[in-house]
């Protein structure tokens, strides 16, 4: 299982790096929030795979909170774009 989790974490890290590049690259607020949302989804997957690697399920509570916060962030930015426009 250690090999599998290493490969999976490698794939997820590459994906997170690409999202981060998209986040930092020049773009509108909407582009950035979409990238941030994807980054959070990847982070949740990563923490879950990491908990398999450690054989320990204490990290799983973090997942619930992260998933919740990601949605709140997206909804807030949608409100912001509605008021101020995308830029």
């Amino acid at each position: 299982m250690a090999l599998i989790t290493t490969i999976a974490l490698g794939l997820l890290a590459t994906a997170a790096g690409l999202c981060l590049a998209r986040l930092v690259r020049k773009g509108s607020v909407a582009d950035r929030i979409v990238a941030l949302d994807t980054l959070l989804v990847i982070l949740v997957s990563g923490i879950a795979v990491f908990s398999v690697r450690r054989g320990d399920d204490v990290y799983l509570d973090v997942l619930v909170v992260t998933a919740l916060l990601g949605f709140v962030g997206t909804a807030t930015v949608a409100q912001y774009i509605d008021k101020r426009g995308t830029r």
Partner: protein
Amino acid sequence: MIDFIAATMMLAGASLALIASIGLHRLPDLFSRMHAATKPATLGLVLTLTGVAIALGDLSAGAKLGAVIIFQFVTAPIGAHLIGRAVYRAGTELSPNTSVAESVDAALRGDSQVDGDESRG
């Protein structure tokens, strides 16, 4: 056998996450990028978390992971809808290959006026 299923699901989920983030770079406009950000990313998360739940084989872990999966299924479309609607109303350049149905356009813009009147009035 259980390990094999769990490993396959985790690897498939991680690959889908990678595909989603490649899509974020390669697709031409915001709405097609949102397609990459929501659908493959959600399926990837569901596959990964199911694989993790199988690998851990623990009821309380499975319940937490199940809650996250359900939550993602509920919030991903809502979040994408909120962002997409806000951006469409604010006006953004579309790729020439993106087409918008007249009725959808009218509905979105008509809604916008009502909302605007409410918030400013």
